[in-house]
């Protein structure tokens, strides 16, 4: 995967909220991985659903897209796709850099 930074422009009004938001997203990755090991599709679906609902609002449209895909894959118990999506999600979180404007 690429090592390039992904620049995301976020409203300055949300600056105080972003550190907590990003911390919660990193916890998501751990929770998603645990759920994959446990084949806990309900939790996978639920986390995907929440990511879909919250990502775009904060300015991270990619998180909303990944959340929607994780939710859809969890509905059909597609563990292979879910694992790939979690990798993509972790990669995105590792490379994203916020610029406030």
């Amino acid at each position, binding site marked *: 995967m690429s090592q390039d930074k992904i620049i995301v422009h976020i409203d300055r*009004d*949300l600056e105080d909220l972003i550190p*907590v938001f990003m911390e919660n997203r990193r916890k998501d990755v751990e929770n998603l991985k645990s759920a994959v090991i446990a084949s806990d599709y309900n939790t996978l679906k639920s986390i995907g*659903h*929440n990511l*879909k*609902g*919250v990502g775009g*609002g904060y300015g991270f449209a990619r998180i*909303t897209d990944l959340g929607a895909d994780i939710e859809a894959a969890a509905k059909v118990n597609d563990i292979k796709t879910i694992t790939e999506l979690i990798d993509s999600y972790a990669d995105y979180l590792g490379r994203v850099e916020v610029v406030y404007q």
Partner: protein
Amino acid sequence: MAETQTYRNYRVLIVDDDNDVLSLLSAWLTQAGFEVVTAKSGEDAIAKIAGTNPKLVITDLYMDGMSGMQLLSEIHKNNPLFPVIMLSGQAQIPDAIKATHLGCSAFLTKPVERDDLVNQVKHVLRLTRDTESDDGFAKNIVYRSKQMADLLESARAVADSNVTVYISGATGTGKEIIAKAIHEASSRRDHPFIAVNCGAIPEQLLESELFGHEKGAFTGANTRHEGLFQAANGGTLFLDEIGDMPLSLQVKLLRVLQDLEVRPVGSVKTFPVNVRIISATHKDLDKAVKAGEFRVDLFYRLKVVPLHMPALAERCDDIPVLAEHFLEKYAKQNNKKKKHFAPDAMDYLISSSWPGNIRQLINVIDLCATLCKTNTISLSLVKTALQDEPREIQTLKQTKDACEKNYLMSVLRITSGHVANAAHIAGRNRTEFYKLLGQHNLDPAQFRFKKES
């Protein structure tokens, strides 16, 4: 800054079990000037409502413990009119319909946009302006729909001129009210506005009613009568139901419009008149012209500026404000306390087909206000009142079309005009959905809330 100070009086309670959503929505609404309280569950929300007295609750639909739907029901046990906005990550029509019928004021789908949320909150709290008129034009006309705003914009543009206006539209849509608004916004406002229903006066009387007659002009003409053209001199003559005017009179009217003078029945003299003509009809005058029932030369002289009055079902956004207006009027006229429609009753009013237009709406509201024994008019009473209204039996196709159109309007209303969400709810792809909207002449933009400037 003034906006911030105004909304500070409006406390909004946001309920969601996701901290990130709570933080985000709180930040948006606080920045928009509202005071915000948060709750992490339905149970927590019930306790906070009692303690903080919010004006509005925004709740997630799916939460552990008490769901958003249960919270809505719990809130409405004490106050059935309390505004609640529901948020859901899944746009499922059964949820949206159930929430609407339980009295939810709006249903938003996550991910929600900041502007959509803030506009919806302002709309529910009635902080948005109901009309776009800001110069007093048509100030007595109650509306908030884009259709009426567009119509009134055209009417305002032609008001202060002498141009002849022709208003088409079904019976009961309020054509005379528009005619009067045009008159009152014109330089003729200090002169008479006279309305005459050409279809309600027998042919032999209509000529003397319009043009006047001399004493002894015909049997029973014991005094001189100046006629409505002369009575309206300097002002406006509104010729309603012009499509019902007999052909023999059409030629005489045409002559008056060409020569700007009238000759009363039995008179050898003509009198100059300075009258602006506004005409209206529920008939399709193009068809009448083709059928030889209406003179083509008169048609083009009258139809210089055509305006079309939309049917009530086409401007269903106006029904809540019209209902409020007529309930208030009824209360004042009958010296009674003003009543309100339950949210599901209002939803039913909005989605009804209203073949009798505003006139039918007034009848239904008066009937409901008379029969209702409590302060809140229920859905069952509205259904009874609407069933009691005589209506023509429609063909199966007409009924199916009306039902489909109502359904599409409901879905667009629920999604605030968001086509992708509406199509998803309706179980169609976007292309098919757009095709359906085209068939019913529906514009999704009309269901989006106006952003305040």
